[in-house]
């Protein structure tokens, strides 16, 4: 039993009030939402932006000469500019809009890797990855005969860095690595890793699904080749995502899907592809969702990512130290540098039973394998309970979590 840390002084009540969904009761108790790593909630400004677009501005983009099409195109492309600025990409042509992190990674696997690799080539990932940063690479390995290499992690859930550097060999075609582990919350030292990989000429893709919502991300500073993330983890709508790609690489890649909007001229003999980023955006996109994502970025910029990261850091430490006060808790993922999520086990209570008991008290957490089965296997467990925070959470939420865990112990007496 260790002592709970003092509460962080700033309580962003105003931020919380911006999220209408949080003002409700579940099972007669005020909702405590601790599942933002699965999907974050949306502020009213995002919900309103989407609704306003649907009511007033909807038409297809990049097509019509009429007023609505202009409005829709301006709003959609305006969101792309906001994204570019948010991640500090050098050029808007480097911001490819996708349906989410999963599609972004598949795009790189199929369009960047598949045409150029074969047996003798390696794709390097880590043991920490989400299934979305494993399976697309397995597919491309099956298709080409390339080999998937997995960098090991230690008992705290962090990369074994000494061994890792020796895996950066000349036959590695690409390194794909998460910025922040969705299952354990480990922050990987991606800047150092990119620097070392690039010294050896290895392109790097960063799965930033859990990074972008919680800390400032500057893709030029990271110097990565690809950075993938999702709108719905950063307080925007589902079905939106981004692939940042270095222009020189995107330029050389063939289209990922064919269809409308990704072409300049089509005949049955040949097709001239559109310029970047449209070459990778076949078909009518999720216009409303992307506009919502733009509104989410406005919201985040208004608070400031530094401020969000600082607040979450304190709240996170409060949560971890509070969890440690619960008898019978076992924290899974104890890396030195972590963000947002904490996985844990309580006594021998199965995570689904715990999830039910917490839900019964109005508390939403994630239970199970978190789409990271190899991580669970690494720790010899089938799943965990995972509490994940965002800036709209408070110390009160953490206190409710702890109280509910004590109740669970009582039920399982």
């Amino acid at each position: 039993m260790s002592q709970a840390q003092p509460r962080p002084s700033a309580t962003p009540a105003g931020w919380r009030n911006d999220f209408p969904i949080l003002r409700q009761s579940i099972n007669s108790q005020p909702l405590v939402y601790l599942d933002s790593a699965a999907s974050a909630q949306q502020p009213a400004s995002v919900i309103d932006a989407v609704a306003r677009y649907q009511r007033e501005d909807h038409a297809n983009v990049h097509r019509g000469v009429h007023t609505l099409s202009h409005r829709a195109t301006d709003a959609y492309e305006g969101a792309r500019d906001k994204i570019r600025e948010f991640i500090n990409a050098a050029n808007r042509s480097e911001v490819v809009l996708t349906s989410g992190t999963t599609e972004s990674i598949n795009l790189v696997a199929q369009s960047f890797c598949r045409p150029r690799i074969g047996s003798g080539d390696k794709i390097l990932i880590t043991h920490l990855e989400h299934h979305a940063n494993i399976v697309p690479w397995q597919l491309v390995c099956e298709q080409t005969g390339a080999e998937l290499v997995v960098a090991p992690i230690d008992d705290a859930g962090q990369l074994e860095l000494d061994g890792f550097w020796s895996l950066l060999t000349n036959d590695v075609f690409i390194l794909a690595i998460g910025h922040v582990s969705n299952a354990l919350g480990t922050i990987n030292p991606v800047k150092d890793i990119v620097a070392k990989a690039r010294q050896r000429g290895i392109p790097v893709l960063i799965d930033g699904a859990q990074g972008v919502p919680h800390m400032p991300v500057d893709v030029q500073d990271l110097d990565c080749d690809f950075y993938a993330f999702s709108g719905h983890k950063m307080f925007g709508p589902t079905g939106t995502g981004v692939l940042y790609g270095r222009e020189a690489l995107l330029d050389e890649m063939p289209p990922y899907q064919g269809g409308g909007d990704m072409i300049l001229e089509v005949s049955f003999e040949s097709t001239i592809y559109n310029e970047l980023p449209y070459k990778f955006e076949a078909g009518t996109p999720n216009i409303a969702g992307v506009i919502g994502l733009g509104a989410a970025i406005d919201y985040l910029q208004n608070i400031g990512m530094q401020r969000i990261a600082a607040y979450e850091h304190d709240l996170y430490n409060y949560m971890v130290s509070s969890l440690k006060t619960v008898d019978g808790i076992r924290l899974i993922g104890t890396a030195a540098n972590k963000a947002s999520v904490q996985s844990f086990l309580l006594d021998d209570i199965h995570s689904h039973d715990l999830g039910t008991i917490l839900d019964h008290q109005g508390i939403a957490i994630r239970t199970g394998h978190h789409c990271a089965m190899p991580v669970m296997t690494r720790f010899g467990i089938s799943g965990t309970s995972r509490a994940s925070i965002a800036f709209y959470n408070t110390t009160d939420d953490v206190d409710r979590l702890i109280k509910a865990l004590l109740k669970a112990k009582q039920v399982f007496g």
Partner: protein
Amino acid sequence: MTGQAAKTDDLYDLYRELILDHARSPRHFGRLQEATHTAQGINPLCGDKLTMYLTVDANRVIQATSFEGSGCAISIASASLLTDAVIGLTVDKAEAVFSAVTDRLTQGRADNEPAFDINLEAHFEKFKALDGVREFPSRVKCATLAWHALHSALSHEATPATTE
């Protein structure tokens, strides 16, 4: 919940003493070497995985049962109750119990009991311990997982049973 306030008792109704007892000390847990029928039950949503073993004699009577695997308290307790209950039943009767129990759990038949007319009252009393899941729709699949595996084993289905 139909908008009603949840009763604290719901939780204790779900995790009754009998359920917790079977979850902590599952009966017939382990592999049955001489099994004539076996099948896996997988809940892809949560990763619960059970293997059901049965020994069926020439008269189509279930002589022995066991199970192994991992899962939540509800799925383990349900499997434990099942292995206890079907020993000595004919295959046909076990199938009838499968239908009755899964109907009871998925269709909320408790108010119209008895759904059983097959002289299994003693066992049936114990299955009632699972009734609590009907207030927790997301957990019904946990309670039925072992039963689907039983059905799969008895009907010689080659692929694992899932609750989907």
